């Protein structure tokens, strides 16, 4: 018995160096390629977004490698780019683990970002610890400023800026008598929802709009009839909503069931998913969705990227451009620095301008933040039609008639 126990402890202690071995020896010989790591939601509730992000990064890498990679001065030749992913399981605690793995096991040179602000905060914190470049999108500039990160850079629109879009649309694109009178604000109880909600409230003040209904929207709730009844009682004619696709679909279905007629419904996050239009069919028409990007943008590669995406997934996307552009900007920064040394790349992403990306021209400030405008699209027969910012000869916004008259 005694000998067995000692044997057991011996085994336990031995297993530690074995684990040690398992986790080391991953590193590639340096100088042959540029290794870029990216935490991605591959599993968990955010996985749909994560898979788009992954696809877009892969496209960008393939495009650059087709050109032979990026010229690196120290190697005196073009080096190919290799991407490694780590699953962050849609969880803040796991994104930290994913980054630890990318840095320590894969020994990546630079990091591309994951998606959503909830995940970006711990991701940036972790990357900061190891002084690793972390270049991402879909993180709120306001929060990013608070974090005072030295190594991270973000390209996105600001929630405050984006939340002015509906008010500008009303004032510039609608006739005076068509402008909504009773507006409802339905914001998901999440960091993104709060950021947007705050933005809407402050812009409403400056634009002289008061909200007839201002309800937080619990994530994953299945019954919105209380909310709808409230809106009905207050004669709401316009809705600004921020929520996940499933919640948004359910809400619109229940709005139709309750015969609540709203002429202007503008949604963020949940309404741009193709599943939204698939689930609702014709009922999705007239609903307005936001977007990070549009294949109708007059920038290089936009049309082709959109086509590639549609060929592969048989649907359109209003987000992949932002992801593709993020990778694109990082590669341009490496190209400009002629080095994948992290300090050089970081410096190249500060106080710098990158022209001709799929997101247009981007200007990074001294903390590594570049803003691009948010778009607005209207669903029309299963397609998101860009109408804001207005493109010449493009689609015109339509106001929704009553349910019975569609």
């Amino acid at each position: 018995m005694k000998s067995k126990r000692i044997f057991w402890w011996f085994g336990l202690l031995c297993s530690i160096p074995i684990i040690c071995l398992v986790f080391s020896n991953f590193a590639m010989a340096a100088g042959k390629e540029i290794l870029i790591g990216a935490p991605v939601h591959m599993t968990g509730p955010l996985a749909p977004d994560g898979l788009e992000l992954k696809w877009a990064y892969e496209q960008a890498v393939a495009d650059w490698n087709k050109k032979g990679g990026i010229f690196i001065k120290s190697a005196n030749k073009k080096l190919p780019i290799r991407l490694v992913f780590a699953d962050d399981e849609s969880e803040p605690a796991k994104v930290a683990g994913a980054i630890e793995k990318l840095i320590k096991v894969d020994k990546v040179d630079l990091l591309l970002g994951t998606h959503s602000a909830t995940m970006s905060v711990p991701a940036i914190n972790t990357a900061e610890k190891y002084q690793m470049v972390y270049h991402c999108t879909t993180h709120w500039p306001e929060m990013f400023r608070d974090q005072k990160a030295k190594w991270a850079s973000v390209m996105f629109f600001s929630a405050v800026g984006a939340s002015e879009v509906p008010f500008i649309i009303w004032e510039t694109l609608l006739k005076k008598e068509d402008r909504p009178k009773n507006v409802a604000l339905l914001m998901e109880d999440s960091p993104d929802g709060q950021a947007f909600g705050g933005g809407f409230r402050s812009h409403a003040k400056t634009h002289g709009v008061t909200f007839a209904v201002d309800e937080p929207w619990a994530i994953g709730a299945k019954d919105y009839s209380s909310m709808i009844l409230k809106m009905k009682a207050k004669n709401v004619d316009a809705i600004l909503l921020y929520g996940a696709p499933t919640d948004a679909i359910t809400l619109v279905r229940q709005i139709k069931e309750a015969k609540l007629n709203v002429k202007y419904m503008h949604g963020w996050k949940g309404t741009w998913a193709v599943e939204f239009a698939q689930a609702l069919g014709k009922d999705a028409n007239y609903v307005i969705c936001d977007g990070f990007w549009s294949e109708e943008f007059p920038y290089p590669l936009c049309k082709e990227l959109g086509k590639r995406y549609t060929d592969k997934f048989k649907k359109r996307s209003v987000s992949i451009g932002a992801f593709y552009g993020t990778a694109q900007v990082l590669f341009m920064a490496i190209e400009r620095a002629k080095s994948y040394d992290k300090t050089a790349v970081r410096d190249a992403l500060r106080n710098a301008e990158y022209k001709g990306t799929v997101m247009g021209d981007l200007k990074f400030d001294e903390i590594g933040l570049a803003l691009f405008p948010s778009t607005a699209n209207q669903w029309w027969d299963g397609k998101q039609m860009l109408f804001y910012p207005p493109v010449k000869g493009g689609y015109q916004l339509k106001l929704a008639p009553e349910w019975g008259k569609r």
Partner: protein
Amino acid sequence: MFDYLTFGLLAQLFINGILFGTMYGLAAIGLSLIFGTMRIIFLSQGAVIILMAYCCYWLFTLFKIDPYLSIPIIGLAAMVLGAGIYQGLFRRAVKMEDKNITLLIAVGLMFLIENLMAVMWTPNPRSISTGYTSSSIPVGGLAISFTRLMGFVMAMLSTAGVTLFLKRTLVGKAVRAASEDIEAARLVGISPHWVNTIAFAIGIGLCGIAGIALSTTYPFDPYFGFIFSLKAMIALALGGLGSVFGALLGGIILGTLESWSSFFISGGWADAVSYGVFLLVLLFKPEGLLVRSVKKV
């Protein structure tokens, strides 16, 4: 503050709560049967409901079978699956004294089903869109959602069916006896495995019904189910563990509670209210609201 309150609005609120709550109720009945005979908290209930919703989605998109016509197919498939789950996973574990084991098997099953679904159908939300989706029936100025009304009808019919089965058939009586006193049931010669298999088959069969009701009403994704497991558990505790009718009523109470609290307080607090009431019930009437007090033994 509530100057816009009218009788019609309150009535609508009330009906919505009931229709909504039957969904919880359906899930809770299955839980209650399984809990009654085996004392298992079957946490993967919600995941199985979503699995059934996906099956319904498949039948609809691949074979163009109307969701309501697929009830017999899915109900039967779910019952077979339930019996299979019991025989394959719980038969061994049910004998063990440690209840953590069955709880953990259920958790493992939940992980497994959720992620299998994510691989098979991608994590993107799916939904069934038919002619009657988002249509409503006007009744005296109120709008009653057709799909939810159908869900309610299915819940009522299946509750009645299960109740009849438990009361009228020999096997059903055995299940009832076993849920009252497993030892006594064994003494009168009821094979516990047989009873457990039946309970699981019916419990998961109800998941099939709930899955159909869910898929016609809501969009769903692989991770949508867990909240259903939680809410069904609360409904169960409200109605009293191990009572079929109580479980349904518990679900309805929970649904009404949530719909009222989200109207009068705020949508964000509805969950806190339902969990709060749940805790209060646990503290002051742990045997459930609908069960007459019995002396503690």
